[in-house]
């Protein structure tokens, strides 16, 4: 290993290469080899990035919740759990944003409009805002432990909130409008190659997510230890103020 290899290791580099290969093959399968859908036509090709990205976001927020729970439940609380939770939430927010954008592009082609007040879209938007709020709480002033405690509690509250929002939004839509667009995937009849492309997308994005989390939580560790080091310097200065040392 070179002395300055950043946040990478041979394992992450191998994973990174694998992800790149998978992304290229996903592009080939998704955009070239797979056939157009009978109903959706070529727009189905958006699904190969849209579905995996929302899938990844769900995994990310699930991981955030699990790590937050573990952090709070341990007697010896380790900040590593908090950092993984934070890294995962950040990447989750990225992927929700991606899926909202790709979803609305797909919607423009299919429904003729970028946004419909469909239950799934609306609750995904709320999911996005909720975790943007979570990230804002992580940035509040305080020590690492304060940040970890506050944000873990927030992540667990989000676990309560999201099903409630989802349920109520569902109820809201189902009573007000025919569920004509509720389930975009229901109409898709996937043949073998399309199914494979979608599956490939899920695997690719999941591995990409793992790679990103590994790197991000290492950067967070570095950020934390730099803040600690800054504290050491500040303590020394403060002692000198009094001429103790």
């Amino acid at each position, binding site marked *: 290993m070179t002395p300055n290899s950043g946040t990478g290791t041979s394992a992450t580099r191998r994973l990174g290469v694998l992800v790149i290969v998978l992304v290229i093959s996903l592009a080939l399968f998704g955009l070239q080899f797979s056939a157009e859908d009978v109903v959706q036509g070529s727009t189905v090709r958006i699904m190969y990035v849209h579905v995996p990205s929302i899938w990844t976001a769900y995994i990310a927020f699930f991981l955030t919740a699990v790590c937050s729970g573990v952090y709070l439940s341990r007697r010896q609380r380790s900040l590593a759990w908090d950092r993984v939770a934070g890294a995962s939430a950040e990447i989750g927010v990225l992927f929700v944003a991606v899926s909202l954008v790709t979803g609305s592009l797909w919607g423009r082609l299919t429904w003729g409009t970028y946004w419909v007040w469909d239950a799934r879209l609306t609750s995904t938007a709320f999911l996005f805002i909720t975790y943007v709020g979570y990230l804002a709480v992580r940035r509040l002033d305080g020590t690492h432990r*304060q940040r970890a405690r506050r944000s873990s509690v927030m992540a667990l509250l989000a676990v309560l909130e999201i099903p409630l929002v989802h349920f109520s939004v569902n109820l809201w839509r189902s009573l007000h409008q025919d569920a004509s667009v509720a389930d975009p995937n229901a109409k898709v009849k996937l043949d073998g190659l399309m199914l494979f492309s979608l599956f490939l997308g899920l695997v690719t994005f999941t591995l990409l997510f793992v790679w990103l989390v590994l790197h991000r939580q290492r950067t967070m560790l570095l950020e934390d230890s730099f803040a600690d080091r800054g*504290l050491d310097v500040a*303590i*020394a200065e*403060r*002692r000198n*103020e*009094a001429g*103790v040392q």
Partner: protein
Amino acid sequence: MDSVIELNDVVAVLGQFPALAGANLQVSQGEIVLLQGPNGAGKTSILRVCAGLLPIERGSGRVLGIDLVAQRDEVRSRVGLLGHSNGLYLDLTVEQNVRFWASMVNATEEEIVRAMSLMRIDGRLSSVKTARLSAGQRRRCALASLIVRRAEIWLLDEPHAGLDAQGRDELDSVLRNAVSAGATIVLASHEMERASALATRVVTVDGGGVQ
């Protein structure tokens, strides 16, 4: 004498700033310790650490035998802190404030009446909104709320600030009575003359440490 406060090389952080940079302090039961030092030396932070308000980032500390790192919450109910701010609700009257704080602890009616008369905030003053009071009157109100708490350790940050001469004498006698009843007092003050007459020991704080 047993040591009721014990701070060992305590570092405490406000944001990114080390308010305490390795402070050591031992206080025995029945002492009146005066913390003195320039502004920003860390006097307030020492009091807040002892009250269990400010977490210890590094080092260790015990108050009344309770570990400040692990069981900070349990320290709190047994100490009384009078900080820079008075902890009053400005939209409540003097009496409403004292009664509220008395209801947070098991204070009897008799204790409430006595504390209020001791601090001379009974009578006409008791029904005045705290927001209308002068700084010294607010200080009295806060002290009355503190007296009803019967704390084992009194942590006082500039308790004399804003009080008139008579008020200071009264406060001193309240503090002496508390000590003879078994309490321990740590106070930070710039009123060197008055505070040193009261104190049994003077400690100099500077640069976030104790010298």
